[in-house]
């Protein structure tokens, strides 16, 4: 019969420092790969909407004409599938979890006016080119 097999371990634990950290006083450390939340380089985004279609829980929405990218961080499951799908690699998964809240809310990112203007110009050029091509086709 073996009684008190655990006693040496239990006693030595009395004199060891705790393995937990004093969390609010000492900040939590996340490893580099930690899947915390999604960040976007909004000016690199081409509003293709692949991320919105890939998302398993439908938390992302993209508005091409307004140049916005919206995410409901409370719905996001941080799977990272949008990061994999993004063709411009402007989405990144960074450490740091969403803080809890009483109500769900979404965050909207707006492209800067310069990028919007450049895009509008590009669209106009493309439209002009298409119109010219159409006109040329009609002439023939």
């Amino acid at each position, binding site marked *: 019969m073996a009684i008190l097999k655990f006693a040496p*371990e239990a006693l030595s634990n009395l004199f060891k420092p705790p393995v937990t950290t004093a969390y609010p006083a000492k900040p939590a450390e996340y490893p580099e*790969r930690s899947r915390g939340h999604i960040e976007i380089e909004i000016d690199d985004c081409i509003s293709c909407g692949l991320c919105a279609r890939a998302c398993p829980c439908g938390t992302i929405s993209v508005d091409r004409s307004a140049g916005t990218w919206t995410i409901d961080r409370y719905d996001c499951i941080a*799977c990272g599938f949008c990061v994999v799908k993004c063709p411009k690699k402007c989405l990144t998964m960074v450490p740091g979890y969403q803080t809890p809240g009483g109500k769900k809310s979404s965050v909207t990112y707006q492209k800067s006016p310069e990028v919007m203007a450049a895009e509008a110009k590009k669209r106009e050029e493309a439209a002009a080119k298409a119109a010219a091509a159409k006109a040329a086709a009609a002439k023939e």
Partner: protein
Amino acid sequence: MGKRSVIPYGPQHPVLPEPIHLDLVIEDERVMEAIPSIGFIHRGLESLVEKRDFNQMTYVVERTCGICSFGHGMGYCETMERIFDVEIPDRAKFLRTIWFELSRMHSHLLWLGLLADGFGFENLFYQCWRIREKVLDLQEMTCGGRVIFSVNTIGGVLKDMTSEHMQIILKTMDEIEQELKTIQKTFFEDYTVLSRLKGVGIMPKEKINELGCVGPFARASGVAVDMRKLGYAAYPMIDFEPVVSEDCDSYARCYVRLMEIYQSIDIIRQAIAKIPSETDLVTPVKGNPNGEAFVRLEQPRGEAFYYAKASGKPNLERMRVRTPTFANIAGLCEMLKNTELSDVGLLIITIDPCISCTER
């Protein structure tokens, strides 16, 4: 004959980690029959195939369960790879093996803790979970999530492990082995532990066969069944033998699971020693799946069964996950017959029930 009465047990009970309800027909203090009912947390993940395409399902299936998450993601990907008929790169196979064994270790350590908690040994419970935390840290370091890995994709894995990561894993494995040896003494020799486990909940080998039990539950009754022998991932390249015990009681189940942690440590060491250095991690797949496949895997709790049927559309027609607990519930009810009422909580824990998995 004593007086018969029925005691409702669960779904909320201090000893139960997950919601299962049992109606126990008892005679005096002995259980005569146990009638289970589940379904308190049915989420209908299988019917989500109608709304999510086959790529998104990887992440849905993975979230079936928090403890065996990696196995589910991998099982689904293996099934789809069989439908697409692709072979994944060798390095991806080894990475999957390492991650799978890490998840097995953390599942078994969690279970050992719950078992200790089940017979009221709180100190031992904390000790197990302290070791488990090291495994969780490794998982977070390599994949970014503590329990949900999200690294599987159809055709391979998304993330690589650097050689520094592998060095840290090897170092931590040595530490865990040391710490496990100290608590192993308590689990195998301590008087209080033995008196709760030895000879309690006998499950004879013939019954295991009849009821189709799987995993450590079957192995503890002398049935050497281990789906890793089917040779998926990198297991054919690794040397291991299933841990089997002939005792058939709760002690044997504890023994099998504790020894499997050592086995996992050994498999991880072998895998890291043999891992090929290539850069390719994914074999790309094209188009939509068409066909059906049956895949079996050895989850920490036993044989898990995956079935998918596709018909050339992005959405699958049917996706089926049969988890090990589903196969073991019939065994549990048989085992509970003719036991003391006070042992019921502990015996439910010994099959390692994962009800959230079971209900999908």
